């Protein structure tokens, strides 16, 4: 081994390792590490790669169902969607890089999540994005929105995968830490899934894609560190994405996957070549022997440390069957991508790297993975929210509606999604603007429904309810279009887990999510954790973003929110107690954030949802919208605007009825002739249902008050975001 200076305590600290962690390294190696080895341990044991604070809790989430082919632990989750097909999907965060360089940070976030999905053999068929920004008034917000949206579009559009939905929130809690969570859904043959466990002693280890440069070194450790003023000074290297190369890499990998050459394959994500090699070797219970000088390099004079820790984008690692190198290389040559045999699988159980034959690092694989720290961080039970103080209506209901639709929380996101190609691949059935997007399963009459959701203000007020609500809302959104919810991925964005209050939020959200997943039969098959989202001790709102998919067995039978006919009855499904705590109404119009969030009754959620889905699947309902932010009146207005059909609404006068955010509710538009029967069916199944209005005309009317025209509402709804972004 090359002689290197001994490691100093400062170097250990700079690598984000504690003294105890360093002691474990000394025990594992039986000697002092050199700098490259220290770097390898530090990235492998970073929060980002090792999940050291979250692991114990993640294990409590349900991950199984008869249709789950592969749960958490691989690059992405895999579920059986019938007809011999599988959906492969995952969500991932790129929060810190996007704050520093919004365009490239967001773009490379999309690139990374795409690779996680196609590395398992899927052709990506849809992207989603869940975005959280600071207050609109904050100096940086506009610039961040502009760059992030352009970056997501810039990458996804170029690669040719439609972006079909997402969400955008604004809250001062994200001023210093925005959240950029990207999700990809792919489609594969259920019997052609590729995994990452290496096997076959002596098999070639092959590197493909772009060359390795000095970019993103320490990216994984950066993603696990809290921000301070020095961060902007340190100017950490943010990677520049190359979507064109990614597109070639997708095509080349899928072409290779159609041959019989691959033993194992894994993308190089956080911690690059190190993490991918170690994971492949560990899963297969083998060793990896790498020739570092064979790694294609963009710059001269890169040290082994730099090569091993680089986070250059658009790279993959593959273990090939022996003797198939030439066949594989021909494919990558055709796509003008780098291809290099960089080592082989060994029986040593060690991860070894050489430069010019000389060993530059040598670490036993098992302990590198298994001895990684795992913390049971102390946590405190979150304080129960105080009861809601009395609420007096802010203003007349129609004026309130207009103000809400024209505000930052509920205004149309069209300005965002029109920068995304939503229709490339020609299989998009329902674009952004509805509850769940629908993408046709290519070449069939079936579809996938996809939604992302999370209501962070609920999670802050009562983490357990908030965690359950996020899962329930995704399930509800998928149900609203008539699809059968199958499974979720998550992206758990929180503050500093070393603070017991934050850890308490984390634990509470996970517990709530777990309960919802179990009751709704909606397991978690993949996910990602992003901690330390705080600046100057100010943490973000707890944000467990959930992405879910469902399947539609017959595309002909799906629903969407646009009112289609005059003379339909608008039926409200679900119990309306008029819950105003933590609502948008309270927050935007009364500037209050008190009270508990709406309670989530998962049994009721399931019963109501199953009822609605059955009606859609039976072809009896084609117009449906779930109720969420803003409550009944907002949902009704959204249906009216989308279908360009007016509504005459009737019900009690209290604000809670029209703006409360009670859970487990839907609005259906049902022809007069079917109404009685559907109400009767609901009664039989103990599902609360009542008629609250009738469709027709070109205006919205509430309890025979003054009508407000759809054109006026639409103008208000569409204007806020473009006006806000006018001078970005």
């Amino acid at each position: 081994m090359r002689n290197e200076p001994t490691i100093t305590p400062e170097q250990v600290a700079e690598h984000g390792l504690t003294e105890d962690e360093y002691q474990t390294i000394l025990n594992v190696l039986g000697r002092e590490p050199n700098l490259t080895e220290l770097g390898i341990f530090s990235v492998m044991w970073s929060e980002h790669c090792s999940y050291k604070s979250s692991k114990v809790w993640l294990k409590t989430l349900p991950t199984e169902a008869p249709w789950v082919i592969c749960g958490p632990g691989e690059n992405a989750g895999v579920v059986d969607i019938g007809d011999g097909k599988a959906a492969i999907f995952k969500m991932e965060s790129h929060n810190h890089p996007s704050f520093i360089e919004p365009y490239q940070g967001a773009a490379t976030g999309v690139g990374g999540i795409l690779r996680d999905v196609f590395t398992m053999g899927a052709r990506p068929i849809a992207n989603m994005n869940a975005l959280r920004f600071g207050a609109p008034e904050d100096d940086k917000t506009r610039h961040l929105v502009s760059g992030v949206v352009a970056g997501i579009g810039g990458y996804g559009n170029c690669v040719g995968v439609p972006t079909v939905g997402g969400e955008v929130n604004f809250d001062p809690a994200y001023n210093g830490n925005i959240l950029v969570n990207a999700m990809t859904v792919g489609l594969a043959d259920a019997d052609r899934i590729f995994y990452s466990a290496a096997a076959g002693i002596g098999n070639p280890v092959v590197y493909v894609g772009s060359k390795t440069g000095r970019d993103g070194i320490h990216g994984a450790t950066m993603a696990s560190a809290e921000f301070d003023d020095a961060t902007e000074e340190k100017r950490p290297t943010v990677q520049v994405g190359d979507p064109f190369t990614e597109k070639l890499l997708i095509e080349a990998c899928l072409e290779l996957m159609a041959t019989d050459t691959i033993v194992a394959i894994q993308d190089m994500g956080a911690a690059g070549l190190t993490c991918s090699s170690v994971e492949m070797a560990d899963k297969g219970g083998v060793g990896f022997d790498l020739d570092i000088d064979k790694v294609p390099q963009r710059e001269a004079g890169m040290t082994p440390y730099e090569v091993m820790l680089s986070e250059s984008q658009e790279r993959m690692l593959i273990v090939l069957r022996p003797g198939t190198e030439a066949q594989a290389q021909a494919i990558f040559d055709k796509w003008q991508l780098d291809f290099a045999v960089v080592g082989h699988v060994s029986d040593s159980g060690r991860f070894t790297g050489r430069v010019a034959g000389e060993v530059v690092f040598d670490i036993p694989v098992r302990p590198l993975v298994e001895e990684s720290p795992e913390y049971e961080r102390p946590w405190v039970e979150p304080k129960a929210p105080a009861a809601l103080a009395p609420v007096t209506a802010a203003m007349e209901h129609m004026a309130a509606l207009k103000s809400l639709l024209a505000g930052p929380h509920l205004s149309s996101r069209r300005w965002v999604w029109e920068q995304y190609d939503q229709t490339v691949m020609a299989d998009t059935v329902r674009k952004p603007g509805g509850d769940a997007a629908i993408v046709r399963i290519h070449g069939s009459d079936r579809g996938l429904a996809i939604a992302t959701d999370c209501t962070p203000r609920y999670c802050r007020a009562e983490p357990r309810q908030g965690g359950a609500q996020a899962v329930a809302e995704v399930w509800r959104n998928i149900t609203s279009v008539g699809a059968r919810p199958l499974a979720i991925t998550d992206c758990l964005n929180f503050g500093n887990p070393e603070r017991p209050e934050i850890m308490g939020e984390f634990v509470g959200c996970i517990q709530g999510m777990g309960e919802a997943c179990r009751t709704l039969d909606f397991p978690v098959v993949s996910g990602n954790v992003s901690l330390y989202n705080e600046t100057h001790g100010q943490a973000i709102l707890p944000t467990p973003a959930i992405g879910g998919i469902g399947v539609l067995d017959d595309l002909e039978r799906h629903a969407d929110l646009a009112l289609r006919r005059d003379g339909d009855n608008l039926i409200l499904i679900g119990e309306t107690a008029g819950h105003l705590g933590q609502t948008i109404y309270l927050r935007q119009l009364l500037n209050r954030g008190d009270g508990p969030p709406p309670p989530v009754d998962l049994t009721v959620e399931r019963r109501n949802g199953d009822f609605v889905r059955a009606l859609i699947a039976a072809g009896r309902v084609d117009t449906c919208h779930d109720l969420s932010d803003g409550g009944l009146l907002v949902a009704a207005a959204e249906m009216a605007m989308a279908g360009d059909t007016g509504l005459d609404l009737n019900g009690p006068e209290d604000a809670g009825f029209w703006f409360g955010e009670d859970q487990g509710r839907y609005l259906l538009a049902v022809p007069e002739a079917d109404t009685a029967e559907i109400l009767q069916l609901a009664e039989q199944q103990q599902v609360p249902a009542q008629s609250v209005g009738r469709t027709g005309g070109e205006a919205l009317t509430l309890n025979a008050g003054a009508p407000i025209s759809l054109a006026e509402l639409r103008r208000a709804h569409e204007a806020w975001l473009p006006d806000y972004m006018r001078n970005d």
Partner: protein
Amino acid sequence: MKARVHVSYKNGVLDPQGKAIGLTLANLGFEGVGDVRQGKLIELDLAESDAAAARKSVEAMCEKLLANTVIENYAIELEED
């Protein structure tokens, strides 16, 4: 006064555009082309006539808008009218 600002990726940052141009030049049969980098050139007409003041103001423009110094460098050239 005229200012020319050249914004380019820092050394070590991947320049996908430059890379693709290099590939195409090679495909077109141009030989002996090594590294290719693509940057931006922004030309500004300034009312300011004092060179030192103009440079200071253009520097501020670069820091605030024209370049993102996380990944980009900038260079300023001034030219009397």
